[in-house]
């Protein structure tokens, strides 16, 4: 860092630490110490591999930075300088007199997703700096994540961007965990109002393209697509993609096949990708997953490859950094979709990490592979699948 930047740094800074120690408490403490690179820390964002002892992680964090507010979650891989990793504790720290943070949690979210989103947005009332974003961490195994985001929007209105992600559990699909100070939570939502004297910006992109003719969602309910073009959704979807025979009968073969082939939903500004790989019903021949699709929607099957996805990595970073309107960035949070790992493979996510490092340059960045990304600048929606969501701070 140049000396002349020190004053700015002391007012607003971000630091990132990572530890691959196997002892969970020690790893957390090590990562926190590395992340604390400035005075007056305001927030620690902890990304821990699902293999860690979550209670020990939080004890380690509290021991290394007593009294500093903590949020975080388990992952399907941790993102940071040095490339993507599995099995680490990766911590982002934000601090300085020019930043304000207030956090809030809502529990027992299932069945009242919209209200829970509305509640956690309430922390925005506690901050006063002019540039604001609500960061939201959700439990990736809770259905209807859109309603959580919609609840936040109802509370905050159009003026506040939204950013966040859904906690993951390394594809175990048995339990993802959220962290709030000393607590390990499931079926919860965490909100963090981040306010700054300098601009904060959100960017998001997916790297998929549509294939073939559109289909119409003729029946859908509870976040599941029951029929496409009046026929069982599972069969129509697989036929369109010339899927292998076992994808029709074996749930894990279906998931493996569908992970990299989302369903696209037509919107005014483009086609959104929806991951429908995780909740297949072989008897009812329906498909479901992280995002709701409404009846009447025009949909396509979509495909992407490493090149198109890495182009989207660039697009999301550039979008977020451009929105800082010329202010020097101090760091980025980068939330990428867990399903992208299926398309990219280990080599591909390493190259994704290299792209992120190219955009970050010398500034710190951290994030995780999520079960859903949250990013809203305009419109009323902000829950995404198969994207990279970037929060840039200046």
């Amino acid at each position, binding site marked *: 860092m140049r000396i002349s930047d020190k004053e700015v740094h002391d007012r607003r800074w971000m630091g990132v630490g990572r530890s691959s120690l196997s002892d969970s408490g020690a790893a957390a403490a090590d990562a926190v110490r590395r992340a604390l690179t400035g005075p007056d820390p305001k927030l620690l964002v902890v990304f821990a591999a699902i293999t860690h002892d979550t209670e020990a992680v939080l004890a380690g964090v509290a021991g290394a930075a007593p009294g500093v507010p903590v949020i975080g979650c388990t992952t399907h891989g941790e993102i940071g300088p040095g490339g993507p990793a599995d099995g680490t504790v990766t911590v982002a720290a934000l601090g300085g007199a020019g930043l304000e943070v207030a956090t809030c949690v809502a529990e027992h979210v299932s069945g009242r997703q919209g209200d829970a989103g509305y509640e956690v947005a309430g922390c925005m009332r506690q901050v006063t700096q002019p540039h604001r974003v609500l960061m939201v961490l959700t439990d990736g195994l809770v259905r209807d994540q859109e309603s959580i985001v919609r609840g936040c929007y109802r509370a905050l*209105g159009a003026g506040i961007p939204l950013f966040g992600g859904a906690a993951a559990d390394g594809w175990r699909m048995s339990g993802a965990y959220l962290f709030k100070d000393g607590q390990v939570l499931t079926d919860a939502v965490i909100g963090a109002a981040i306010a700054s004297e300098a601009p904060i910006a959100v960017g998001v992109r997916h790297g998929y393209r549509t294939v073939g003719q559109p289909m119409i969602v003729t029946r859908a309910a509870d976040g599941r697509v029951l029929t496409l073009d009046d026929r069982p959704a599972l069969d129509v979807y697989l036929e369109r993609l010339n899927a292998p025979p076992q994808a029709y009968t074996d749930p894990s073969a279906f998931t493996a096949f569908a992970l990299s082939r989302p369903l696209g939903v037509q919107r005014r*500004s483009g086609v959104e990708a929806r991951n429908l790989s995780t909740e297949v019903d072989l008897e009812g021949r329906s498909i479901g997953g992280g995002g709701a699709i409404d009846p009447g929607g*025009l949909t396509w099957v979509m495909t992407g490859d490493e090149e198109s996805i890495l182009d989207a990595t660039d697009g999301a970073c550039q979008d977020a950094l451009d929105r800082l309107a010329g202010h020097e960035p101090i760091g980025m949070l980068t939330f990428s979709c867990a399903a992208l790992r299926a398309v990219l493979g280990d080599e591909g996510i390493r190259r994704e990490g290299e792209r992120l490092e190219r955009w970050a340059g010398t500034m710190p960045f951290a994030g995780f592979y999520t079960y859903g990304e949250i990013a809203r600048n305009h419109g009323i929606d902000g829950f995404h699948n198969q994207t990279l969501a970037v929060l840039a701070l200046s």
Partner: protein
Amino acid sequence: MAGLAESLYIQQLVELLAVVSSSTDEASAVQNAVERSAQALEAEVAAAVFDDKVVASIGFPPGAVPHEEIVAVTRRRRSALDVPGLGSCPAVTASWAGSHPGHLVLARWDAPFQVEEQNLVRGMARVLELTLTMLRTLTVEHAIRESLEERQRLLEHLFTIQRAISRREDLRQILDTITNGARDLLGDEIGLLWVRDDAESGRARLAAAAGTRPVDLDHPPVVDLADASVAGEAMVADRVVVRHGQETQSRMLKLLGPGTVYASMAAPVHDSGAVTGALVVASCDRDRIYTPGDEQTLRAFAENVSLALTDANTVVRMRQAHHDALTGLASRRLFLEQLDQQLAAVDSDGGTLAVLFLDLDRFKDINDSLGHAAGDQLLTVTADRITAQLRAGDAASRFGGDEFAVMLSRVDGPADAMAVAGRIVAALGKPMRVAQHRLRVGVSIGIALSGADGDEPAELVARADLAMYEAKRRGTGGYALYGETVPGDGTRPAVPR
């Protein structure tokens, strides 16, 4: 993608109907409609206003909803709303009358609402009106069940229409589908769609008919709007018109009906805001009485016709902008776009494409001696003969006058491109019958191959054009390759690089 985006409006209306009509009470129907309409138009703000009160909204934090400003938009006293954090956002509103009049308001940052979007907002207001009317007329349980079934049938019909439009089915088929749907849903014998040729026309022609005596739609019946027909009145008054009783039916309905018509109802159809037609249902049942709910259903269907017409007209307008009116070939602009895309494709996979520039020999003589009509006919035949020589993925364009360009999307080298050029020369060299004359037209073709890094479409066409002049200089009926000396039908041109 571009072609499909136009069917988005229909999709959004159907999605709204699907979501809103599943609501079981008024408050949730209104809130759902507000949020769904904002979502469909990617607007930040949406609100529903009844009796000058905002009863549901999204986009403002609770306690900060600018009630007076939103009501002012419904009265057309404001055309924008100030949204905290965003600034002034262009607004749009649509109203409905009836027993429970209301307004839908939307505001969007940085992007004023297009005419088609304003149509969509009006369609959404109709859907909300329809849903609220249905909900308000429910009193006993069997009515609820019947109503749900009715809504399900309405949805199924709308899905069919949406699918037809998104797949670019023939407009007449789409209109038939809608007309049939309205008739079927309302349980009537007759469905008709009348369309004005233009907004100023005092007459309308029959565009679709279901359940009538046989009608030749290639020579459709015409009605005068001034006649006392239910369709004419709906178009003139821009509202739903209902007529009960045998004696009140128009002469045209009596003519078209399979039996005596006892009741009829018409709803206006709009294109880009102007009344362009009327959707009519009619019944031969002596006891048929149209209810307010029936009126709403017909109106919802009429809004679908409006969107279908807007959609179809958009396609026609787009096609006109991108294609040569005479030959139907791609315009120069579209051709250059296609070339640009294909250049990127071959650039990335190391392939080669070729551009052929064609200029007809003796065309001016024929045009001068036999007239423009003959010239036009010759150009049309030429276009057909050129396209007959192309493969899938290739493209042909008329650049103007007697100049054509062809893109061969993948070639194995100069010999491959020259073989196609040779085939075109041979095909055009065969006699054609134009204006009772048997004519032979020669063509000179210049060929340019991609290869240099960063080939620009215009530059590639210019090279082919240069090569064409070389071919012409050598004599008629030949081709030349840019940058090389090649054998070709007696000509051996060499264009310096």
